[in-house]
C-alpha cells in the first residue's frame, strides 16, 4: 500500500525525490498545487476506496508523504 501511494505521489509531484523525503512539506516546496492535490484524492479513492474530503481536514493534516500514508491507513482500518 505504502509503495503504491508513494508511486502515485511521485507521479503527481513529477519528482521521485518525494519517496526519500517523507516529511517534506509538499505544498511549501511547490511540489504539489491544488490541482495535483485534487488528483491525489481521486487516485486515493480509486486505488484504496478511501474518500478524503478536503472540507473535513486541514491542509496541515496532509502536507507530507508520511501524513498522507498515515491518514489513508487510518481510514482503511476504520
Amino acid at each position, binding site marked *: 500500500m505504502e509503495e503504491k501511494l508513494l508511486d502515485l505521489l511521485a507521479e503527481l509531484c513529477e519528482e521521485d525525490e518525494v519517496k526519500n523525503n517523507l516529511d517534506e512539506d509538499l505544498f511549501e516546496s511547490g*511540489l504539489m498545487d491544488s490541482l495535483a492535490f485534487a488528483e491525489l484524492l*481521486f487516485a486515493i479513492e480509486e486505488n484504496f476506496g478511501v474518500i478524503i474530503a478536503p472540507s473535513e481536514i486541514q491542509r496541515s493534516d496532509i502536507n507530507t508523504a508520511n501524513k498522507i500514508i498515515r491518514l489513508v491507513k487510518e481510514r482503511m482500518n476504520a
Partner: protein
Amino acid sequence: MDTRFVTILEKIRQNASERPDRLMMIESAGETKQSITWGQLDDYSDRLAYWMDSRLKTKTPIIVYGHKDPMMIVCFLACVKSGRAYCPIDINVPVSRTAAIVNEVKPEIILTTEPLDIQASGTTVDKEQILQIVSAETNRISPEKAVKPDDVFYIIFTSGSTGVPKGVQITRDCLDHFIQWAITLGNGVADEKAYVFLNQAPFSFDLSVMDLFLCLYTGGTLWALPKPVQNDMKQLYRSLGESDANVWVSTPSFADVCLADPVFSSELMPNLTVFLFCGEILTNRTVERLFKRFPNAKVVNTYGPTESTCAVTEVTVTEEINRSVTPLPVGRPKPGTWIRIVGENGQILPDGEHGEIVIVGDSVSVGYWNNEEKNKLAFGMTTENGTQYRFYRTGDEGYLSDGMLYYGGRMDLQVKLHGYRIELGDIENNLLKIDGIEQAVVIPTYRDGKVSSLVAGLVSSLPVSDEKAEVAKIKEALKKELPEYMIPKKIRFLSDIPRTNNGKIDRKAVGEIL
C-alpha cells in the same frame, strides 16, 4: 448586427433603472463581503466618468489595477462611458510587469482598488480617492461621450514570446457581437431570470469577459471568488453554497479542483443550470464527474483566443458525445464567425484535414496595441458572404468535421497551463535577465494530454554549489518579473543545452534530459 439587439451600454442603463436595488456584484471574502447594487454601479460610473472626462486631456486608455473589488466594475464602466478603453491588471501581475504594461500604454491616470507601489508615468487614483469622487462629483457624464461601435472597449495584455506582454484591443462592436451569441449558450441566460453568475477568473484574463458581460447584459448578480477563498477549500465550498449560482464560468482545471470533495454537487448548488468552460482542454473525465454530481446541469465547451473576444465556438456536451468522442470537440462557430483550416501554403483545407485554425468574423480584435510588426503577421482582412471581415491566425492546430471544430494543440511555443496562456519564450527571456544565467529553455510536462507543469533547464556561468538554494533564489528573482503561474515548477542546471544542426534549441532532446 440584429437591429433588435440592444447594445451593452444601453442595456446596463436599462437594467439599472429597472432594478436599482438588486445587487450587481458580491465579492465573497469569507465573513466579510463587499457588494454594489445596480443603481450604485450606474450612478458611480456616471460621476467618475464625468470627473475623468473633465480632467483628462487625451483619449488614451486607462489602466485599472486591482482584484475582485466591486469598484473595479465601476472603474471599467466609467472609462468606457467617458469614451476611453480600460485595461484591467490583476494583483497576480508583479509590479515590474505592471510597470512594463504602463510603459506601453502610457495612461494619463491609473485607477487602483488595491495598493500599487509603482514608479511610472501616470497619476495613481486609489480606491479612497475614487470613493470620494463618486460621492462629491455632482455632474454626470452625458451618454454621447461613450465609446462608439468602432472604438476600443478594453485592452487585455497577454504573454508575449519576447518577454514583453502584448495588448489585445477589443472594440465595442466585437464585444456586442460576442454577447449577442453568448446569451444563447446552454439554456440561454434570459434577463427576466436574473441569474447569479460565478466569477473565478481574474479580470485580466479574458475568460472573465464571459461571466462579467453576461451578468451585466442580463441584469444578474456576479458572485466573485477572491484569491484567498479560492485557495482555502473550506471557505471555497462555503462560498459556492452561499452563492446559489445559476451559471458557472471557469477553466476546467478549477472545476477539477472543486470536484475533489464529494460536497461539490447539486446538493450544494441546487440551482446551477449550466457550466460554461473556456480557456483550456475540457477532458471527458471532468465531464463524466460533473454529470454524476450535477445530473440536471448542462455542460458547454467553448473555444476562442483573447484575440477574438473570449470565445467563438460552442458545443453542449451530452452524455452521448462524452461517451463516444475523445478528445471532446470545441464546437461550432457563432453567427458572424467562420472557421478556416489553413495549410502550410495558405490554402484552405477540406473537412478532416489538419491545419492552422484561422478565425474570420465580427468579433476579431483590431490588433495588438502599438505593435504593427506583430499585427501584420497575425491579422488581416478577407471576404465572407460578400462582406469584409478581419481574420486572426491563431497558431492553434485543428480540423473541422461537418462544421464541428476539433482542437489539436499549439503550432508554436505557447502553452495553456491551468487555463493561463503562457509563451515559453516569455519565461526564457525573463530567466536570461537574471545574473549568471547564460542559456535558458523551458519545456512543458503533460498529463492526460494537458500541460501539467513547466520545467526549466539552465546553463549558468557561475559555479553552483548548493543547487537547492540556487533554485530558490532564481524562483524568487523570477517572481519579481512574472505572475506566479508562470514560474517553472522544476529548475535543473545543465552543462549545455542541446541544439539542432542550425543552432536552434533542440526541445525534444531537452525534454529527454529534463
